[in-house]
């Protein structure tokens, strides 16, 4: 049904999106917690910084990543020298670019769910003998679950389609960084790629829709478990 090239693009897309979600989720929960529960001077700045990828052109994000994580960038050079990890022009790099781009979506969803957790429940847990980490894991986190899930699925669905930052930072390498939108772009560039482009577009459309519907259904089930 799908051609080998399409399957490969689908596989790369799924891997990139999954890796990006897996890496950014813990950080997104931590940042959301800081933004909701912590009181510190730089909070508005952090808030703005997290949301930057929403308003910056993706090419700019990709370019900045290249500056920082490129082979000659300060972080990239250190990673390469210390661990032999190369991010630019690799699948991991595509995942990093995708993670940065979808990070604000994830933080927003998680933050919203954390704002819905009554701090009084954490107080109650406290009087029952639960320390800070204990009550976060046993009370706060389970109550945030619907939001975390929604954020993760939305970020995953968005990550499948990230284009600008990925092509800038990780290039368009078949089998490594050529995700669905990059394959689609390549098809459009070639003179007889009309059919291929249409098929890839339809695939992207179906994936995105399925992701959003799945997110909604899961969140609804979780919410039902928590009660009104």
């Amino acid at each position: 049904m799908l051609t080998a090239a399409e399957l490969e693009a689908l596989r790369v897309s799924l891997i990139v999106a999954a890796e990006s979600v897996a890496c950014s989720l813990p950080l997104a929960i931590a940042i959301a917690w800081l933004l909701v529960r912590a009181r510190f001077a730089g909070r508005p700045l952090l808030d703005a910084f997290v949301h930057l990828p929403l308003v910056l052109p993706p090419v700019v994000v990709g370019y900045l990543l290249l500056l920082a994580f490129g082979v000659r960038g300060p972080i990239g050079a250190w990673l390469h020298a210390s661990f032999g990890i190369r991010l630019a022009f690799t699948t991991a790099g595509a995942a990093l670019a995708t993670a940065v781009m979808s990070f604000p979506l994830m933080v927003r969803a998680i933050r919203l769910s954390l704002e819905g957790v009554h701090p009084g429940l954490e107080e109650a847990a406290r009087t029952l003998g639960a320390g800070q980490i204990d009550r976060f894991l046993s009370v706060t986190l389970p109550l945030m679950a619907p939001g975390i899930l929604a954020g993760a699925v939305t970020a995953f669905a968005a990550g499948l389609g990230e284009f600008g930052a990925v092509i800038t930072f990780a290039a368009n390498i078949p089998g490594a960084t050529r995700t669905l939108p990059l394959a689609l772009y390549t098809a459009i560039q070639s003179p007889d790629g009309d059919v291929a482009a249409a098929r890839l577009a339809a695939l992207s459309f179906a994936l995105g829709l399925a992701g959003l519907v799945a997110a909604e259904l899961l969140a609804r089930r979780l919410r039902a478990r928590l009660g009104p």
Partner: protein
Amino acid sequence: MLDVDVTATRGSFALRARFRAPTPGITALFGPSGAGKSTLVHALAGLVPAAGRVQLDEATWLDTAAGTDVAAERRRIGYVFQDARLFPHLDVEDNLLYGLRRAPPCDHYARRDEIVALLGLGTLLERRAHQLSGGERQRVALGRALLAQPRLLLLDEPLASIDVARRDEVLPYLESLRDRYSIPMLYVSHQYDEVLRLATHVVLLADGRVLAAGTPAAISVDPALRPLVGVDGVGSVIDTEVIATDPAGTLATLAIGTGRLRVAVADAGVGARVRLQVLARDVILATEPPHALSVRNVLEGTLAELVDEGPDAVLAGIEIEGVRLLARITHAAVTELGLSPGLRVWALVKAASLRGHVYARPAADAADRRGLAAGSPDGHARRPAENEKGRRGDPSLER
């Protein structure tokens, strides 16, 4: 002995509370809304920053001078919140076990099965918080707090969010807990009826300060209480016991010094402890022994004081062998009878007017009180907060 001397601030509100309360027993923290009751219990629990000293027997939770400030999660102070605060992602069973699992393994005095039975939670264990009524929720919260094996239990107006008619889903259970466990409790309320029903000690709080503290009997005649309970709520509380019953078992004779009061209390055997509230508006004064009257309850005493309560009333305090009775009379009566402190007087109390005012008396030995709580003939003792303000209106009052 619970020894408290704390200051705390919440916004512009400043609390400076100092009191001592005997333990075990239920100490009621009574005062109007905004008196600082919640701030005080939050400070005791360690949920808001406070300075000063909080001690219970050998345990010191806060001692600013010595640099001690135990974290809330290590104080082992149980807290029953006004809004229950059950964990919505857990069922009742897991809510109950939340604190138990975190309690130190030694000295478990509250066992799960016992608490479930005592609070009637057996049929609720698999439900979630949103499937419970307000009263059931508070019972689960009570059980959850107790199973954490606390050394002190704070109850922050646990009935405030339950409609008046359903408070009996919780109050009898609270009494059972009080009778079963010797854990010290601090019960916050702005309902005087709840205080009379439960408390062994009362702390009056207003504007962040302790106005008075003492036994319910002592507090009942304290002038500081009067603005808090209103004109019709003023009356003396007498802790006494049944010394005789009539053959039909409906009238009990209570000892007030060497005086006797006969009160309708069904099923209260001889020796049963009774807390009696005699409202000042229900007491009539005479300056000579009355005769040819239908009133049977006459107590002889000495007029101790006359307090001007405005143009309508004078509050007379009558000393009867260590018991203080209050009577609300008119200025005209004071003048015509020539009342003045030191005068010998007779206080007339109609038995019917006492009927609604019998409370089982909280005390260290509990065994003899069960029958009494159930036994008030009109059911009032089991349902003390029937009218809006929770003040005892008495529809059965016959003059």
